[in-house]
């Protein structure tokens, strides 16, 4: 994992300082004065050899200096930390919804392979996978927010309601902890559509992967043995087969997380959800390079972390791996 981390920082470094045609100006801001540009040049040692620059870059990253946004004047890391809980909340709820919908569908489709329900599921999951993330989000927003008006069009907070004290940063949790029903209900109605749209994007992938994993497992000898013991079909599928099928779904959950973060960028922007994704898009539109690089780094690093967690989960689920 360490070489990958080094590689990731190296690549972001290359993009931030080498690929950019004029790094000093990009980091200082397009409207900055010549003096500011030169100050930035000194600060990031842009005139020194590349390997030294990389050293300073990593040192800065580790000490919490991820650059300053030329648009807002705020340190990038501060912005990221401020927006992080919203994205976390969105991602967690989405993945739960997607898993609850997708895994049973995948299992069902595998068990009834080649029958019409299987074809239906395959088509539906392919459809949601192929649909651009903005299509379903915009359609839902149009239908539920503008035409039927049952859900708010965006945002995370209801400005008329008192917010609960911030303990976890996750609004739903904090509302529950504070016993604030109004805030909880507002939080849920605001969370509903973004989370569901994001879930729709990833659910297709979960279904497809669960299905193919289960198909593989159902072909195995031990499934036949389980049947021969006289166990009910339901026990055979949900205890013996699924447990083995889940190991590959877990490795995929990490892949899914990556997919989901990419989708979050679009969803957060459409629903004006104050997370890192929206921050990324706003930074792009403002040509704020430091902020965009900051989001790139935080997204990728969290994915590497999740991959590591998935490896651990994989070892827990499959005893054959534990010996390594």
């Amino acid at each position, binding site marked *: 994992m360490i070489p990958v981390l080094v590689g990731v920082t190296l690549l972001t470094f290359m993009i931030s300082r080498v690929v950019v045609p004029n790094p000093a100006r990009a980091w200082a801001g397009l409207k900055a004065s010549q003096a500011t540009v030169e100050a930035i040049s000194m600060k990031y040692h842009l005139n020194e050899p590349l390997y030294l620059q990389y050293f300073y870059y990593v040192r800065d990253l580790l000490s919490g200096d991820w650059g300053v946004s030329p648009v807002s004047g705020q340190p990038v890391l501060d912005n990221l930390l401020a927006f992080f809980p919203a994205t976390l909340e969105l991602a967690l709820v989405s993945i739960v919804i997607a898993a609850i919908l997708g895994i049973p569908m995948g299992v069902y489709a595998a068990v009834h392979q080649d029958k019409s329900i299987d074809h239906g599921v395959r088509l539906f999951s392919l459809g949601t996978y192929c649909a651009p993330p903005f299509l379903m989000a915009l359609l839902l927003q149009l239908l539920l927010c503008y035409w039927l008006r049952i859900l708010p069009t965006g945002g995370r907070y209801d400005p008329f309601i008192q917010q609960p004290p911030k303990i976890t940063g996750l609004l739903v949790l904090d509302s529950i902890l504070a016993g604030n029903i109004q805030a909880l209900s507002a939080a849920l109605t605001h969370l509903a559509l973004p989370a569901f749209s994001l879930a729709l994007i990833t659910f297709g992938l979960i279904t497809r992967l669960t299905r193919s994993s289960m198909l593989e497992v159902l072909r195995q000898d031990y499934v036949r043995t389980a*049947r*021969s*013991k006289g*166990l009910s*079909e339901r026990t055979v599928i949900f205890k013996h087969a699924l447990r083995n099928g889940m190991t590959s779904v877990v490795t995929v959950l990490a892949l899914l997380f990556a997919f989901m973060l990419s989708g979050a960028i679009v969803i957060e922007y459409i629903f004006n959800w104050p997370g890192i994704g929206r921050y990324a898009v706003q930074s792009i539109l403002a040509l704020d390079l430091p902020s965009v690089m900051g989001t790139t780094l935080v997204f990728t690093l969290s994915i590497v972390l999740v991959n590591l967690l998935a490896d651990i989960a994989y070892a827990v689920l*499959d*005893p054959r791996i534990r010996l390594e």
Partner: protein
Amino acid sequence: MRNVRLEFNTEEGTIHALRGVDLNVGRDEVVGLVGESGCGKTVLGLSILGLNPVPPAKLLEGSQILFKGKDLAKLATNEFAAVRGTGVSMIFQEPATSLNPVFTIGDQITESIRLRYQRSENTHTPSSSVINEQVREALKLVKIADPERVAHRYPHELSGGMKQRAMIAMALAAKPSMLIADEPTTALDVTIQAQILRLMRDLMNEVKTSILFITHDLGVISEIADRVAVMYAGRIVEESNVGELFKEPLHPYTAGLLASLPRLSELSKEIQPLAGSVPDAINPPKGCSFHPRCKFVMDQCHTIQPELKEVKPGHKVACHLY
């Protein structure tokens, strides 16, 4: 089993796997089922328990599989579960892939034991300590030296022989009336093979379970079976008790099989393989399916399929020579 016929519908054509099998297995008997690969013996074993995947496989009208008064051939797929485990149980050729890799041996045996309790008249569920004791008993039955340790192991941590013993323990834990053993020793090396066979023979004395032992190895049959049925191209062609079959094989195929075995007592003699090859299951030969390879072929062998008849007491054969 009477006139059991089963076919597989595939893209290449219909495979006639079983073409009228008549076979009996009595209580406390070990019946060996012998045949080359592709003769349908595994399919036969699987069809008793309804384990052949049903869309391609189809049991034809007129097939009867009578077990304790019930005709299993008439069961729908979901009705088989009641018979499996406690009525008839099965062990398979590859213990490595037949045991679930993510559960311990103890867990897998416990399942069978719990099932037995569920289906018996007692409605009370035994405590886990009682069950664990029974798991240990089951493992001791198959002569595993350290049952406590093995019960907590995962399949991949055991050797081939141990895995096979564990599978036998698991199959017997539900106390079935009959055990189908499909080539249980084929994947093991020769010394382990001998151990397992000896174990199964000893078990016969302790446990009241009849065994249908499927194999392609005549040597194994002589070790373990009381009676033998020889299968060829989806039908039984000869059936008798073990000694009789080896001394006086009646069917030319059986004779050919025996002649092709090397024997220690006759090392100088040349081995005589059987001429020809296994018949095509999609288009089996008309009449007696062995006729293309038979030294004693006559006119009627080409057109009329011989019936399995008892020509000597306890010795049946399906051949026009008799």
